[in-house]
């Protein structure tokens, strides 16, 4: 009977241990860590800017490591640095969120979602980061709208300018964003794998990527058709929108105005605290 008791106790302790995994510190090399600062203005964004890159999102996969946690891996190709540090032709960005080994799924409320096959203008951090190497929601998908190149923010609106507060997107909703308020209408794909379709290669060597109709962090399907969808963009909608070169030039101007040169450090992976431990603070005021 003693043997059974020991076995049962061991099983219980084992289960408890599984529920309480994780530690405060990142186990890898954490020398020279640079923590991000509050993104409370456009100047704060520019000060923490490693590069603005233009790249094609060729594939999306997922990964999990104990400390780094669930990650959605964005595989970019044809990478061009338009401002700041030069990057290689291909780049993988590991964004927080995705499936866990025990079949659960983790989502971060602030990270933008991405459309497989899209061309993106991305602002990258020159600091370490925990959730995404892309600064806040500065991930703009390049689209043609009413015959004009526009930059679609994760909210489905187009970029119209910059202000001391940030990048402005003062158009009506031009594309369906990453989910609608209320979320009850979002349907989930019965098969997650169907959304992880890698790009194919055309006979002439160019890539052929599936076009998803919505910004998405897989696996999602477009909202049900009973819901409101935006009217197709017209010329009036895009009168004030910025093109890629316009936005990059404006950011460059801001950098010069505040005496900052984008570039420097780039962290390919998170080196801060493990995903499941959130250091909290006592307020000082």
């Amino acid at each position, binding site marked *: *009977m003693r043997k*059974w*008791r020991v076995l049962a106790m061991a099983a*219980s302790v084992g*289960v408890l241990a*599984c529920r309480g995994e*994780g530690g*405060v510190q990142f186990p890898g090399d954490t020398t020279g860590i640079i*923590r991000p*600062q*509050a*993104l*409370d*203005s*456009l100047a*704060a964004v520019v000060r923490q800017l490693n590069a603005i890159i233009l790249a094609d999102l060729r594939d999306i996969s997922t990964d999990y490591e104990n400390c780094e946690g669930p990650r959605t891996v964005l595989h970019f190709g044809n990478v061009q640095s338009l401002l700041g540090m030069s990057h290689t032709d291909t780049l993988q960005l590991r964004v927080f969120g995705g*499936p*866990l080994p025990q*079949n*659960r*799924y*983790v989502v*971060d*409320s602030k990270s933008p979602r991405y459309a497989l096959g899209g061309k993106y203008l991305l602002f990258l951090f020159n600091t370490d*980061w*925990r*959730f995404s190497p892309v*600064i806040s*929601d500065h991930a703009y998908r390049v689209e043609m709208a009413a015959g004009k190149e526009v930059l679609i923010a994760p*909210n489905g*609106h187009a970029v119209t*300018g910059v*202000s*001391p*507060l*940030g990048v*402005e*997107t*003062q158009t009506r*909703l031009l594309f369906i964003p990453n*989910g609608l*308020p*209320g*979320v*009850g*209408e*979002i*349907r*989930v794909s*019965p098969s997650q794998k169907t959304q992880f379709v890698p790009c194919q290669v055309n006979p002439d060597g160019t890539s052929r990527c599936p076009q998803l109709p919505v910004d998405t*962090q897989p*696996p999602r399907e477009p909202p*049900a058709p009973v819901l409101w969808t935006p009217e197709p963009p017209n010329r009036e909608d895009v009168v004030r929108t910025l093109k890629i070169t316009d936005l990059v030039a404006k950011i460059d101007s801001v950098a010069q105005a505040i005496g900052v040169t984008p570039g420097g450090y780039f962290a390919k992976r998170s080196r801060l*605290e493990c995903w*499941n431990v*959130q*250091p909290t*603070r*006592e*307020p000082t005021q």
Partner: protein
Amino acid sequence: MKRVNIKRAGSYLLLFVATIPLGAYSLEYCGSTPVRPLPHPIVLRPNGCSFKDFGSPHGRSLAILAREGTENWTTNVLPPNVGDPCFLTFGNGTWDVGLVNSGTIDGSAGRTLEMYEQCPDSRKHEADILVAVDLDFNQADQRRFARTGSVGIGRHALLHEYGHAVGLEDVDDDFAIMRRSTGIGAPMGGHTNSGSPHYFMADDYEGLFRIRGSLARNPNFYVTSQVVLNNGALRNASDNPFTGTPMPDPLPVNTGDIIFFNAGAGVHDWFGRKIELRAYADSSTECTSLPDVGVTLGVATMLMPFFATASGVMNVKIPPLGPSGQVLNVHLAGTLIPLPNDTSSEKRGWDDCATTALRLKAP
């Protein structure tokens, strides 16, 4: 087997079952379910390192969250335990709320980590709410728009993140607590009749309704305002949309000048309303929907369907503003106008008013 051994085995079995991770028995499969099921009730556990009590500005922010939770969802906010360590664990099945350095959440004002039983939109297993500790957690400045660094932005961020926890997503073109918190889309401090600007608004309520399927009691009408210089461009504050720089404060105007004034109103419930919005200038910073207060700048009437927010540009011709150099605050007062078939008795009770960030300097 002896009776005592059966009893002992039963105890071990119970102990084992009790330690199985929560939710393992309640999987909901992805597929055709068009809602995000939530635990009932939601139990939020404030991290005792961040929140000492419910009396401080930070604690009061939690109380607001509890109030909104109670109104819209069964949400219990536990008393903080000051013995808590200065970290919280994501993935343990407990819904935590904590204050963090903004560097911990990649520089953002707030962030919610959500865990689902299976894929996104299946049953929510856990949500941890993280808000930057250096935000201002006092009550917002009267009825002005909240923007980064302004008074009350911490309370706003906390409620915004709670919205994420219960399943709402960011929006950008509606007046809502869930308005995106970065850049020009800073969450706005609209106002309801209660005197507190920290409320879910019409668009939030509609989202909650879609998730929950029913609504508890809530205020049904609010007014808010924004300022624009060119027709159609929405501005949260007194920035010049052409240059991105702040406009003069107060703004010198001449009699007969035309200014554009973006006004908005929202209806929180199922009943459509006709709303009269009166923009007026007054030396007082207090806003009122009583008639004949201040100098009327313009009046607009709009018909609102249920759960609607609407905004429109009021084209205002500056009337004589009184003594030269006098500084006047611009307010937007809303009055519900009963529809012919409206027999409810609440009409005047919810009239509302909003103070804008705009101040005019008389010529």
